């Protein structure tokens, strides 16, 4: 048991990772469900009304976690993709492909909820300021990554080509993050700064953090299930998959 936990390297092969992914996926699925339900309850019934923006500010509880996740997932995805490119490990590339759609979903949600917030706050659904523009670019980078991989038949070429695109796009992430500081734009600055204290009502802060962790668990759950599907597709000609399927292995 203990040797199994220690030997992380072992999990870099799809054979060993497949069952682990199943368990991880299930667990984080439950965690995500619980955290998000709690988070939703708090955002509507516990968190106080904002003195400036009234009830409209509650959008923050999806907008901000979604925006963070969209950036975070991108960095993780690019990391896996880069690892696949350099070390030629199949599993890391599969992880990258598994993360992309979820990242795109969060990027879309940050745009969508941002627009639904912007209309009452700024009076416009959309403006071309630095943060919004770079967030839109992030969304298109996800789409480009997926479209590129989808149009390449040879899986290894798809992995490698996608990795290059993902790595080039990493430049965009710090730009999004710091855009509000570098240019004074319409968009709000970060209320919660890395390392620094928060300038926010603690209940609001906790609600947001709970939602964020819920989204986080959600992303892990979905990515794990997706990576299982990808592993099965890519490794379908190997004996271990055939054996697994023969055994009817529910993993």
């Amino acid at each position: 048991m203990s040797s199994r936990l220690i030997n992380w390297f072992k999990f870099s092969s799809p054979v060993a990772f497949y069952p682990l992914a199943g368990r991880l996926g299930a667990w984080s699925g439950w965690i995500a469900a619980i955290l998000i339900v709690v988070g939703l309850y708090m955002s509507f019934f516990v968190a106080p009304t904002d003195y400036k923006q009234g009830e409209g500010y509650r959008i923050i509880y999806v907008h901000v976690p979604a925006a963070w996740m969209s950036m975070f997932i991108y960095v993780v995805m690019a990391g896996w993709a880069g690892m696949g490119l350099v070390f030629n490990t199949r599993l890391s590339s599969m992880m990258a492909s598994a993360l992309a759609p979820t990242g795109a979903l969060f990027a879309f949600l940050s745009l969508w909820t941002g627009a639904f917030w912007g209309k009452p706050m700024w009076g416009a659904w959309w403006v071309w300021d630095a943060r919004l523009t770079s967030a839109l670019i992030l969304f298109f980078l996800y789409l480009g990554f997926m479209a590129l991989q989808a149009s390449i038949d040879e899986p290894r070429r798809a992995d490698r080509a996608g990795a290059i695109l993902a790595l080039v796009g990493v430049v965009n992430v710090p730009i999004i993050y710091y855009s509000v500081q570098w240019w004074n734009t319409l968009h709000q600055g970060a209320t919660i700064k890395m390392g620094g204290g928060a300038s926010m009502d603690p209940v609001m802060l906790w609600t947001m953090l709970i939602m964020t962790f819920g989204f986080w668990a959600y992303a892990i759950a979905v990515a794990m299930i997706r990576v299982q599907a990808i592993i099965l597709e890519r490794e379908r000609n190997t004996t271990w998959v055939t054996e697994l399927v023969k055994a009817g292995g529910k993993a």
Partner: protein
Amino acid sequence: MREFFAMGGYGLYVWGSFGVALVLMAAEPLLVIHRRRSVWRRLARIVRLQSEETK
């Protein structure tokens, strides 16, 4: 209750955001599970066919 849904005049915006977020975040896991299951089924069929062939 009605007051709650009105969200102090921001109903459209708040529910437009939360609604879309919830719908998409409910749809994605379903789609992914469906994808895994259909891959699994396809492989099971291939394995079955192969074992019949070799028989």
